[in-house]
């Protein structure tokens, strides 16, 4: 039992007929993920790649196919509406891949979601992978845009704000023979659905996860909050990396959330918080897995 999803999870895709959505829907199907429905308003009744039925609304798709999780690939101006539609349909989990959603839209979505049973991951995130048992981790649940073959089934939980940096960590783990329980990309926007801390708590409770890699970057204080909780509560070894030590203050480093402003959100402050919490800090992004392996040995776990 990994966190959030399993290879049995039934997934629908909002925006399955777009270029981006269709390509990654196909890659997920190839990976063995149960993509059971697509949603594109006005295209209900069509069939995606001769296997996936398309519906006009999320509610219809969920009712007809039993999908409980949605992945959103719609363009930024329509993404907030798509998230709210998925919440209204009562899905368990919504993973929003879309990059470039206005922050004000996310502020309203987050406020509107309060009290609902739906969890949002993202936006502007690579999604989730729960590796399968087949060759190149085939047969797992891949929701989003991560390459499938880099994953390997195992017991390390990975949580990160950045997409490609997540792949880097996962690939390092896999090439060193360490598999992953679940990899979660929470996204690089300043307002997102699920925080580092939310995912760390789930990993801490998950019997299949034995160690954790947490990847953060400059901007905000989410990494510090997670570190404070880990210090008091986390039972498992954690290694971490923070990107952006060389970033100049006041400049947005690609991600809307990656900016050092008002002296807050510096890499130095986050690294200090990690160290204080007993998290092993990778000095460079190329030793994330090695740092975790050394940390596990030191702890004798």
């Amino acid at each position, binding site marked *: 039992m990994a966190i959030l999803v399993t290879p049995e999870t039934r997934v629908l895709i909002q925006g399955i007929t777009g270029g981006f959505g269709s390509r*990654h829907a196909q890659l997920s199907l190839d990976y063995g993920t149960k993509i059971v429905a697509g949603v594109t308003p006005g295209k209900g009744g069509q069939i995606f790649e001769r296997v996936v039925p398309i519906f006009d609304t999320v509610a219809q798709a969920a009712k007809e196919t039993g999908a409980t999780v949605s992945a959103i690939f719609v363009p930024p101006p329509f993404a907030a509406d798509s998230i709210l539609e998925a919440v209204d349909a009562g899905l368990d989990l919504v993973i929003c891949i879309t*990059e470039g959603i*206005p922050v004000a839209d996310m502020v309203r979505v987050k406020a509107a979601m309060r009290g609902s049973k739906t969890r949002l991951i993202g936006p502007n995130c690579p999604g989730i992978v729960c590796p399968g048992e087949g060759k190149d981790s085939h047969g797992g649940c891949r929701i989003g845009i991560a390459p499938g073959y880099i994953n390997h089934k195992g017991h390390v939980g990975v949580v990160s704000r950045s997409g490609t940096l997540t*792949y880097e960590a996962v690939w390092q783990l896999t090439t060193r023979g360490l598999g992953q329980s679940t990899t979660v990309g929470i996204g690089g926007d300043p307002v997102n659905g699920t925080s580092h801390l939310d995912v760390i708590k789930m990993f801490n409770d998950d019997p299949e996860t034995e160690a954790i890699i947490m990847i953060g970057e400059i901007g905000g*204080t989410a990494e510090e909050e997670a570190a404070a909780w880990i210090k008091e509560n986390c039972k498992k070894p954690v290694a971490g990396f923070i*990107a952006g030590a*060389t970033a100049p203050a006041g400049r947005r480093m*690609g991600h809307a959330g990656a900016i050092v402003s008002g002296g807050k959100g510096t890499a130095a402050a986050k690294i200090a918080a990690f160290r204080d919490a007993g998290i092993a800090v990778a000095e460079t992004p190329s030793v994330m897995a090695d740092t975790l392996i050394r940390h596990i040995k030191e702890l004798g776990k």
Partner: protein
Amino acid sequence: MNIHEYQARDLFEKFGVASPRGKMAGTPRDAEIAAQELGTEKIVVKAQIHAGGRGKGTFTNGFKGGVHTATKPEEVRELAAKMIGQTLVTHQTGPAGREVHKVYVVEAAEIAKELYLAILLDRATAAPVVIASTQGGMDIEAVAAQTPERIFREPVHPLLGLQPYQARKLALALGLHGPQSTQAAKLILALYKLFISCDCSLVEINPLVVTKAGDVLALDAKFNFDDNALYRHPEIVALRDFTEEDPREVEASKYCLNYIGLDGNIACLVNGAGLAMATMDIIKHCGGEPANFLDVGGSATKEQVAAAFKIILSDKKVKGILVNIFGGIMRCDIIAEGILAAVQETQLPVPLVVRLEGSNADIGKKIIRDSGLAVISADSLVDGAAKIVAVVKEAAATEAAAAAEAAMAVAVAAAKAATEAAAAAAQAAASLPLKSKGTQPAAL
């Protein structure tokens, strides 16, 4: 995206945020006319650049200060003549400074009290927050650090918006009473409306002043807009001043590339913002200095990659390039083709290290291998960073050695020439039988 002060003042007027009257001028003559039209006793002339610290800045022509007061329109013209077309250096512009194209001519306010007001998005609560302080006109971060009790924060419900009672509470916190508190509350509500309507990520009024006449006015403003929301604000996009931005960043934005110029000499081209930052970090860790941040994004085309190379190479400080791609959405073969196209066009004047991993990495590596180009391939991120730093240092050392050798050759030749000249002179002197003792030959 940032805007000029005079543009901010236009937005204030549109949304009913009280501020002093003023006019933008692009020539000294227009500045004089603006001053005549304002018709006030005291006028302020302010250089319009995006950087702060204008008042304490210095123009490269020696003229001190980007903000001056005047009483006569002719004076305004003279001040404007000393600013327009000149370069102003402030603590925020860097030593190169910024060229001033426009001045803002504005009526001077007789200030009785300086306050601080800002609205921004609080990431921790995912909601807007209004921040007010009685310590206006100062560095607000210093105030927050030294006297946090003088900073008031009023969180706003994201769905309800700022309520009138909250604005009244803030006015009281600012120590305002009677008609002034009413004016301030009105201003705060108008500012909130502006903040939401224009998709701002920050609006800061520092100082917010109470004039001797008793009016509450926004004297200076700083705006940040959410770049993600600009698509629905063509009127804000129209305010963008490209002359205020790094030309390489402007060029990059045309190709939807995320580029930020830095001071080092090792350029990098990466997919993904987090990995791009991490690549900068590892270059530094290996002893190099990154020349830029560049995220080509998840779905770059061959043309975008080629454009990215040209932008990187337009920075003459660049002595080497590291390409680091972990293809998820991005396919490595597309990156490889883009590299080839760029190399053919630019002749690649500096060493290039390429690391490809992820989607179609094998095809990408093969394309580069088969091209026969002098590209150094790397197996991992640290391998790539170490290789580019080493090759750039080696080139610098070779260059320095060659320069030293050349200098040495010049010195040897000079020494030789000097010795020969001295010998010749000595010989010439010796051959002068009438030469008096102790007089040096003129040649020495």
